[in-house]
């Protein structure tokens, strides 16, 4: 496309939106964010339930890069919270702060506070094993272990000693095989995968389809009995039908678990979440509130621009 057509297009767009593209304010994708001040009250979200996870003045630095700026938000229990925003805005980083997965990145430095069930997780003496059992995580691309479906599900409980399946336990008859079967069936049913795989639990998990693998990962996450499930774009590598299944599943899970989901797909956020937090470039939490209100009537101009697809 030549420069002239670009300009004409920009003018036509400006005529539609009632804005005029100038040299200072060109309506292109990246610089569409206006220079507005973020206001404190935009992120005040009142809700009736208990707050499950609370972050206060959370800052994350990757080396010199300030990835998250002063984020404070309260996440209500047994609901779905969506984190949306353009690429590189820090929403995944924020998510990984909630179960300290960022500890695994050497250059990351974290300031501020995150509380789970009212207990500070960034302090000495926090048991990471217990924290991650309580706050589970599902990743962007399905990552089952190259083991059988059953072993994938029993991996966590066995390693934590909740299920004793060692040779000694088997020899002394302490291995609780009924409990194992129960756990496999319960988690697979919760992840809506039971009917599809119940006859081939010994097969390698890598033989499942992408959508099935992701549901297996969700089931694996459920196997250690978490309260909170963090999902980092769980459906972005899947086709629409598999995505729909995952979305239904998230809806079901929110009855018992607190789900926090990062997504690029705004329709998805609108469909499945109870409340939505919008992060914008620079790692700022700009607006946080009930999903319907955010999508229909955002307070911030930048959020409105982002949601209506003007940039990002």
């Amino acid at each position, binding site marked *: 496309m030549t420069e002239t057509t670009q300009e004409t297009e920009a003018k036509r767009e400006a005529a539609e939106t009632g804005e005029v593209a100038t040299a200072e304010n060109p309506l292109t994708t990246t610089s569409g964010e206006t220079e507005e001040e973020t206001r404190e009250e935009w992120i005040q979200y009142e809700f009736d339930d208990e707050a499950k996870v609370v972050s206060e003045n959370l800052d994350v630095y990757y080396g010199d890069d300030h990835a998250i700026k002063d984020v404070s938000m309260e996440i209500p229990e047994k609901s779905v919270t969506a984190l949306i925003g353009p690429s590189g805005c820090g929403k995944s980083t924020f998510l990984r702060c909630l179960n300290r997965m960022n500890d695994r990145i050497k250059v990351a430095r974290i300031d501020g506070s995150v509380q789970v069930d009212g207990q500070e997780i960034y302090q000495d003496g926090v048991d990471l094993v217990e924290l991650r059992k309580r706050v589970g995580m599902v*990743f962007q691309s399905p990552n089952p272990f190259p083991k059988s479906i059953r072993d994938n599900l029993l991996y966590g409980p066995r390693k934590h000693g909740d299920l004793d399946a060692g040779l000694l336990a088997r020899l002394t008859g302490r291995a609780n095989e009924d409990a194992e079967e129960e756990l496999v069936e319960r988690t697979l049913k919760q992840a809506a995968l039971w009917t599809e795989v119940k006859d081939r639990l010994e097969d*390698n998990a890598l033989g499942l389809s992408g959508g099935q693998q992701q549901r297996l990962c969700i089931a694996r996450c459920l196997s250690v009995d978490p309260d909170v499930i963090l999902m980092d774009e769980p459906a972005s590598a899947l086709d629409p039908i598999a995505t729909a299944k995952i979305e239904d599943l998230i809806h079901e899970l929110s009855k018992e678990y607190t789900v926090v989901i990062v997504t690029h797909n705004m329709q998805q956020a609108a469909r499945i979440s109870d409340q939505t937090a919008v992060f914008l470039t620079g790692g700022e939490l700009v607006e946080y509130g009930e999903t319907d209100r955010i999508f229909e009537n955002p307070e911030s101009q930048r959020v409105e621009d982002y949601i209506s697809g003007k940039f990002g």
Partner: protein
Amino acid sequence: MATDFGVDEESRDTLVQSGTSSTRALAAFAVAVASVLFAISLTALFEVVTISEPIAGVPVTALLGGLLILLGGTVSMFGVGSRLGYVETDPRASAGLVAGIAFGGIWFTVASLTASQTFGLGGLGWFVVAPVIGGGAFFATILPREDVGSTVPAGALTALTGAVFLLDVIGPQWVWDLGFPDAFFVAVTAEFTIPTLTLFCSLLAGWASAKAYGGFGARGRHMGAYLLVYINALSIVGVLFVLLAFTIFKGLPGLFRGFAIGAGTGPTSTIVLFGTDITWTWPFYVPFAMEGVGLLNEFNGVLPAIFGTIWLVIGAVVFAVPLGVGAAIFLTEYAERGRFTQVVEVATNGLWSTPSIVFGLFGFAFLIPRFGGNKSLLSGALTLGFMLLPLVVITSREAMIAVPDEYRDASAALGVSKWQTIRSVVLPAALPGVVTGVILGVGRIAGETAPILLTMAGAPFTPGSETVDVIGGFQFTGAPPFVSNPALLEATSALPYQLYALITAGVGLGENVASPDQFQWATALVLLMVVLSFYAVGIAARYYFRRKLQYQ
């Protein structure tokens, strides 16, 4: 819309090759002749076919010469025919600079050798002739269109070589004395020259005819490269096969000397297990693999050396694999990547390329004094273990780095500790790679002679009853250290060392061994079989671990 993008429709390759099948058949015929010549020259080089003996009444040189002239003529004819428009091809404007330099260099060498050696023109003569002919070939390659440039220089050289063979300029009796002082009498004989020249010409002309078969252009270049790569791979496999077949062929008579089969023919073996003797008689008898050397033996064998080699390899693997894998775990999973890991990496690579005799000296100087002052199985196994260690570290590291980080993330997100993740996820996923490394290493150490010579080897001719008995050697005592094994501290023989002693030192050429030559080849064959059995075990293990990781 006008398509004026400067694409000349004329210069494009044809979409569908419309060349008549007879012209393509001509090129295919040339490729076939080249392949046949390649095969003959390779067999002649390994003296399967003898140059001086005629095949079916036709002298080999005449046969090779005729085929070479036929090949060269066909290739050149095809190129010229294509230039004159009789054959439809898609040649480029030139054969290219690389082909030009190659042909120029080849013709330069040929011209200088011919001028100075055949015509005896002396120093000045070849100095004039060679650049003229070499330059001529260079320009004859790059100046004409590709179809002539890449066929005629190759075809002419092939035909010329054929004529030289046919006219008996280089015949079976031909010898080129390189003229070094008498002490270093070196001569190039026809037995070597004729196959080598044929090999070379068949490759050149084969490349040219494969290009012609593809109709020159991009397709032709692809075909030419394909032929060279294919022939190269085939000849490597062929050489390996010849080596293997040669050893087996030579070794079998010695190995099966005195072979007998039937109940009660074999020797009697006894194993002591929990205080009870289990005794059985083998239903077959292979004296070479079941006996040592003894004065009363009808047939002699190498059983002590076989067991020496087996225990040596087992000892080295038992020592090196846990240490190496442990070091690799530390370097990949725990150590911070930086200067330290880099230094360790360079050091391990260096250790792997350290000559084995240096490891042998280390064992001789450090291990032997610490294990009773005598050469022993234990110091031999440890020395070889030290040799194996770097390869195990290197390959295990590679295998662990190749395990996707997603597995580690997934495990960490379940709250599983690092060590448990390594044990249950990373190691199983890396095992096939680790096993591959161990297989490679075992192949090397099982055939090592120098370290064994210095650290382990006893007399190469030991009676069968002195076969090292590691399992039976364990002795249990009531006081610390409770268990000891004198068998580990005894000197013993090993196959590579035995072979070395037989061939170089001439040990055992007395009355004990009836036919030393057969004995040597049979030893080599047994060594090969022992090493290949270790390979088989390793490959089976790798297959098993890999299957566990894959669905199917």
